[in-house]
């Protein structure tokens, strides 16, 4: 039997100098199901749990359309009915000041009952309470009917009652039990970065619903995707060699995240323990690491070790393990060093997210000139790596800052969304190892 999970790494530099005190290294770790193992396409049945904001502000207009955000939400839910199958279940939790379950694991075939539950969303009203929403979800998921549970969490604002800290604690408990959560906001009043904290716990996706077309299909896209889940409860332990310092770790696809702050002691070593969440049979998750080290006279050095633990529900296989050791070659002759430009580009792309955080900070400190300079630099980087959508977005907000000296929460949401999008082409799809002179790569 072929292996079920493929774990690969690519280093930016093929070898580095021996006996050097300060060398920078970086690499990309790719994790994806082996298609040869999953010969038949997977079609899982799922428990779909919708946690939907029905506070009073949902009756505000959705941008310049004639529809309210509530209209848009109900349309999106009605579209879900077109894609679920009879063995899926639908749970609808409406939350405002409190939370209420309008549908509790209704079978996908019970279309009439699900439609009735959706109608109830029309009448709910109140403030926004994430804690109540998460507590209710925790109760609801206990009635699981299928192996896979997916939570879809939507809001149009920030939580004003209840404890946000408690809400995140409960979301973390749900994530650790193997439930994944996608988080999203509709309109311009929510905080995209805050919603990313919810999706990050289970390595779900975060969406920023800014146009009506996207709003209509956002749920159906998730439902179609979750059907392809091949691996669940994928946990990664990435251990760094003791000799490494200045460690940094990022997720680069499908969504970019800065994970450096999660590096901590794992046993005696430094490393990162990460809930990678689900893996669809046609998807991959990729991570970038960077570090500095002092080299010795050996010919190679083990720089890290990746340990993966996961379940394959379709084959009833639990606690599967995969291990990968990452080695770096050392040489006295680095004249013909080869650089992997794909890894270099990923490094540049993650710098956009790092810079976005700085733009946010400068905006907060009322420093528009510095924020513009930072954005200009981001434009240059985005153009250099061919991320034209990102470059266009940054230019829009440079102009906005020049006119108004200030970015709104909605602007920051758009900037964060664009900066955190993963590359359209994954590492393993790239075939662009370009032999480069080391000096050239520094230009």
């Amino acid at each position, binding site marked *: 039997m072929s292996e079920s999970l493929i774990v690969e790494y690519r280093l930016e530099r093929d070898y580095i100098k021996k006996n050097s005190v*300060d060398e920078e290294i970086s690499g990309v770790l790719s994790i994806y199901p082996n298609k040869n193992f999953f010969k038949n396409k997977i079609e899982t049945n799922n428990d779909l749990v919708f946690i939907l904001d029905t506070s009073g502000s949902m009756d505000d207009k959705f941008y310049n359309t004639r529809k309210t955000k509530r209209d848009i939400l109900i349309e999106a839910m009605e579209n879900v009915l077109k894609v679920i199958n009879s063995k899926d279940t639908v749970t609808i939790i409406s939350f405002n000041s409190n939370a209420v379950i309008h549908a509790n694991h209704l079978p996908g075939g019970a279309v009439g009952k699900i439609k009735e539950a959706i109608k109830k969303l029309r009448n709910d009203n109140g403030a926004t309470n994430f804690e109540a929403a998460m507590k209710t979800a925790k109760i609801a998921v206990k009635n699981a009917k299928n192996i896979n549970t997916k939570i879809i969490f939507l809001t149009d604002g920030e939580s004003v009652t209840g404890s946000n800290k408690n809400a995140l604690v409960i979301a973390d408990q749900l994530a650790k039990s193997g439930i994944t959560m996608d988080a999203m906001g509709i309109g311009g009043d929510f905080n995209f970065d805050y919603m990313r904290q919810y999706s990050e716990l289970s390595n779900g996706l975060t969406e920023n619903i800014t146009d009506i077309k996207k709003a209509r299909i956002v749920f159906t896209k998730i439902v179609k995707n979750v059907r392809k889940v091949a691996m669940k409860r994928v946990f990664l332990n990435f251990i760094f060699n003791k000799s490494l*310092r200045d460690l940094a770790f990022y997720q680069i696809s499908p969504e970019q995240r800065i994970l450096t702050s999660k590096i901590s002691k794992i046993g005696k070593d430094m490393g990162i323990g990460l809930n990678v969440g689900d893996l669809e049979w046609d998807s991959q998750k990729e991570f970038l690491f960077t570090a500095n080290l*002092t080299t010795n006279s050996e010919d190679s050095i083990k720089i890290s070790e990746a340990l993966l633990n996961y379940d394959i529900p379709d084959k009833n296989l639990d606690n599967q393990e995969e291990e990968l050791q990452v080695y770096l070659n050392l040489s006295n002759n680095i004249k013909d060093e080869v650089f992997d430009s794909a890894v270099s580009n990923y490094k*540049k792309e993650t710098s956009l997210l790092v810079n976005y955080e700085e733009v946010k900070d*400068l905006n907060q400190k009322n420093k528009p000139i510095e924020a513009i300079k930072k954005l200009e630099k981001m434009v*240059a980087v985005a153009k250099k790596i061919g991320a034209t959508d990102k470059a266009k977005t940054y230019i829009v907000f440079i102009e906005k800052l020049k006119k108004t000296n200030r970015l709104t929460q909605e602007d920051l949401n758009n900037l964060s969304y664009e900066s955190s999008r993963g590359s359209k082409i994954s590492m393993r799809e790239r075939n662009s190892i370009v032999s480069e002179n080391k000096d050239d790569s520094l230009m």
Partner: protein
Amino acid sequence: MQVKIKLNERNIIKIPELYKEASIRYLNEIDAISIEREDDSIIIEIKDKDVDLNDKVLKYEIVDLDDNFIDDGELNFSILNDFAKNYDEKLDKEEKIIDDSEKIEDSDMKTLSFPQKLEIKKGDIESVILKGINKNSKIMWVSDDIPDFENTVKIKEDGKLILIETKNLSIGIYNLEFRINNKDVYNIFIRVFEDNNQKSGESTKKTAPIKKKLSKKDNLDINIKVRDNGDEKNDLEGKTEIKKKANENLEKIKLLSDDLFLRVWNKNKELKDLSRKIKYTESILIGKQSPTAKRVDIDLTYLLEDGDKCSRNQLKVFRSNGGVVLKNIGKHRVLLKNRKVEMFPGEHIYMDIEDEIVIGKNIKITLTEK
């Protein structure tokens, strides 16, 4: 760099080829002028003609697309109504056209590739033979402090040979730029030093602030030989004695205890809030913070005085092989005072307890066990 600008015109400053792909970031603003970049030029216009711009200073940094520091400097303004004419004359003098009419061969001379660094003892004359130069080639100083071209560079043999005379150069680092077809740019970084003992040996490949890939097609050979000018008196003789070079072999690691600290002093007063413990997992970056810069762990911005030189990321201190490494990652030299070691950009050294790093006139950083 002194910039003479004309009141009623668009003043155009050409950006050196070396920095065309880089970004220029201004660290302060002068309200009376507008400054914009257009392709490879900087356009300066005076908005408020009533403001006295003489001696105004605009500080800048040059960074690459990854925000890596390349260079920094200052533009000092002065107003000159007939500047344009003088400027052209100055260019004529400094950017000598080197003719490519004949080849020069010298089998005794060593062929070197770029980026290149020369170390010349103060008072010596260094001869540089150029191959691949044509009539559209130019040579000029592009350092922050631009020396007088006529008194420092002599062009001989139709441009094939240049002599660099150091008697009129102060101790320091200079950048001599060669342009071929106004497109390909090559630089020689020249360090003028006081005596033979302070040559930094194997430092050639770390002096260039930006690196250029050379293909066989555009490779330029330069042959260099040093001619000792024994009659020239070293006019800095007797000043601070810097004896040792900074780079050491790994074998000279000094094993130190786990709990080590960097302590910062200004005018002999300790600044405890700037002290840092040196961890095994993280380097400490020392420099000056700028609004759009990457992190600096020990920020010296408010301690620096006029004339003090310190890059945004000047020094990096980290644990390595049981010791502590001090690496100069900035543009300026740094003194390890107690050991009389002068560290040039790119150089590193294994530190010892009570080592004393000196930056500027009054800043001192010490390595201690408490």
